[in-house]
């Protein structure tokens, strides 16, 4: 029993290692998105995560490695992923965004993440996924975990 499980784990880990060489979502940084939108408007997919967020990790490992999801996003979307708690200054759309919460709080949420991921009357919670149309207007926001097929359905819209 134990031996079998070990073999299973090794197999799993090899698979995980191999996964890195496979195709990936072509993630942009905000600055790249800025110029890309000017050159060629396209739908945009933005994913906010943090180190401690187990569901974000699950999405990252299971959903974002799904070949269909990768294909869909890479062909029809610009994709940006952002650590909600980064303390980097982000220049986007002629504006400067910083993490002002981090100056006084632990796990402070970045201004840009708050801007796009806040909900009235609720505290900021992860994961947050924001879907923009070609005009970069918000089409939909999702505040929970989703599977590959659920994501594909939203991406299809």
């Amino acid at each position, binding site marked *: *029993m*134990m031996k079998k*499980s*070990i073999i*299973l*784990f090794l197999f*799993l*880990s090899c698979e*995980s*290692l191999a*996964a*890195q060489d496979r195709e990936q979502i072509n993630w942009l940084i905000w600055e790249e998105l800025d110029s890309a*939108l000017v050159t060629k*408007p396209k739908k945009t997919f933005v994913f906010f995560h943090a180190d401690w*967020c*187990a*569901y974000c*990790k*699950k999405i990252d*490992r*299971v*959903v974002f490695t799904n070949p269909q999801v990768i294909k869909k996003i890479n062909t029809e979307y610009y994709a940006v992923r952002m650590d909600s708690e980064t303390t980097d200054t982000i220049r986007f*759309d*002629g*504006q400067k965004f910083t993490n002002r919460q981090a*100056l*006084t*709080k*632990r796990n402070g949420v970045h201004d840009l993440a*708050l*801007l*796009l991921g*806040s*909900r*009235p009357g*609720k*505290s900021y*919670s*992860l*994961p947050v996924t924001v879907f923009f149309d*070609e*005009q*970069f*207007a*918000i*089409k*939909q*926001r*999702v*505040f*929970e*975990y989703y*599977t*590959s097929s659920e994501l594909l359905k939203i991406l299809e819209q």
Partner: protein
Amino acid sequence: MFYKIAFLVGILSFPIQAQELISLQGSITSNNEPVPFANVVVSGTTKGVAADLNGFYSLKVPSKPIILNIQAVGYKSVTKSVDPKEYIETPLNISLKPDLLGLEEVVVSATHNRLSKKKAPVIVNVLSPKLFKATQSISLADGLNYQPGVRVETNCQNCGFTQVRLNGLGGQYTQVLLNSRPVFSALNGVYGLEQIPVSLIDRVEVVRSGGSALFGSSAIAGTINIITKEPVNNSWEVNSNLGLIEGTTPDRNLNLNASLVSEDLTSGVTVYGIYRNRDAYDANGDGFSEITKLTNNSLGAKAFYRPDDNSKLGLDLTAIREYRRGGDRIDLAPQFTDITEELDHNSIFAGTDYEYFNDSRTTHFTAYASVQHTDRDSYYGGLGGGRTRADSIAANNAFGKTKDLAFVSGVKFTRNFKNKDVLTSGFEYQLNDTEDAIAGYNRLVDQKVNSFGLYSQYEWKPLERFTALLGARLDHIDVNGLYQIEDITRTSTIAQTVLSPRFTLLYDFTPDLQFRGGYARGFRAPQAFNEDLHISSVGGEQRFVILSDDLETEFSNAYTASLNFNNEFNKVQTSLLVEGFYTTLENPFTLVSTGNSLPNGSILEESRNGSGAYVAGTNIEFNLSPSKALLFQAGITWQRSIYDEEQVLFEANGTNPSETDVVTNQLVRSPNTYGFFNTNWTVSEAINIDLTGSYTGTMIAPHVISESGFIQLEKTPEFMDVTTKVTWHLDLTKYLHLELSGGVQNVFNSYQNDFDRGPLRDSNYIYGPNRPRSFFFGIRFGDF
């Protein structure tokens, strides 16, 4: 905040070639309330604008008819055909309907399903795996010391029996729960704390004093709730440790665990295996162990299945094989040694639970059942220093057999009302059937305990700042026990129904300063508890415990009051807890030694109703964390544990004029001062340093000093047990991590130095830290 979205959208709207532009303006409302920051976009173009805080927008559009798209988070989108010429003079006002089924109403993921500690009416201390790692705790028993009011002690040099003392009261006053269910039987209570591997534990919640009606009637000193991990991601880990007690005696450990969870999170499993092998350690070179030889192999799996979003079915199975042996000449068969305590446990646990929520998550229903079966081979005996034929016959007859069956089943129903009040009610049934027989001593414990508990609790929040938890439990207990040793036979036939009221209050003076107060009543019906099943050796003979005749039910009243201050100034977090406790015991079960009164010269202790007693004291806990990288915690307890009248601990039979009754007014093995500290420093992403310590003040420990069983009350010295640990973490890839650690436990070698020597020793005369100075090294790798 949303004006920025407006800004963003505004900037990104590329101007189209202007022909003749008309300025459209108006306000966006819903039920006559302005909707701020709605997006107004001209369909088929990139032209758009966002409304301001008051729902007002203004947009320049060409003079030909257009289609407007109006969107706002939380509202249904509106599409409207507009001829701008009609709105040159008049405003274009748009009304939106709330989107009740839309995005905003989607449940927040389980990440936010946490109960805020601050809102709980009872003080819950949470021990995280981080602390278990910092203290290099291999089992739960090692890690619990690092909480105020909690002390773990070893009670036997031969078998390593450990117990947790909360607020100074013995292990039998504490209820141990596994995932909030009372699966520990009387037998498990003896060694069970060492059988739970730390790698499975998500957290341990310690509640001091019997605060809630949900806890069992015996939870008078408190409750220790062990919560196991709930996986989300696939993960695996292998971790191994080598400890060297006093630099020589090895303690080897290997742990494996892995979790698989389906993509849609509807099913998952965690499997685990543990191997531990610790050699016996002899502190004083007399050939008799002070720390027991221990081997443990456990294998288990825990699975879940969610048929839909509102329900969950869990299943867990664990098998434990644990062997422990202490005494002398560990390599020989036990009957050829002077003293051996050998226990070979074969246990299997099986449990299932079902959880259901209604759609609005206001009703929660849980049902559970678990069963535990243990088969145990025991040997409590030996030649006892003699080499006569009689000694040999006695030694050959000290083998015993134990069967233990525990079954627990219950249902719990929770209803959250609109005014935030919560009603919790439930029913629980427990069966514990123990048969422990050693034919050679004519010893038998044949006990069957059936208990039925019905409880209800109302969480009442009449004011924002005030919460009251009012509850009661009605327990019916049926004990049917037969207890024999040599020529003595005792029985316990009890059928009793007891009502135990409980309440706690929470008042927030300010968001940072809270008062809590509570009262709990509890009882224990006469039966053999964990300690009563334990056999130790003294004077070369065994020491047995038997229930006295006409034992009556023990009652207790526990009162607590506390002030909790939390402050977060910028990134500096501080908290201070000052808690006072006062617990009275009526008719407490007290072990009284009757000396070597058994026909074969063995010592007999009787569990009798002792004098009323109280424990009273103060727990202070202080936490300071100047930054994420640094954490400092410390706690100290001062208390008194006093019998109302002088309590007899040894009853002299009058044959030896120098041996008289031994009496005391203080509870033994309960120090008046004890505490801990814990420092964690994250030096860099790769390096972590822990410095932890626990302090045990002086106490009174009974010490048998003659073959008649006469005891002397010794005053023990104080101890400071300090552990240091360095951990080095390396990310080999995103999917593989490596961690190396090393350190020293009990750096100052603060350890008992007056152990008895030889075959006649009192094996229960052991106190203070669990091990002398020890070195340890660990490796852990996997995707965790």
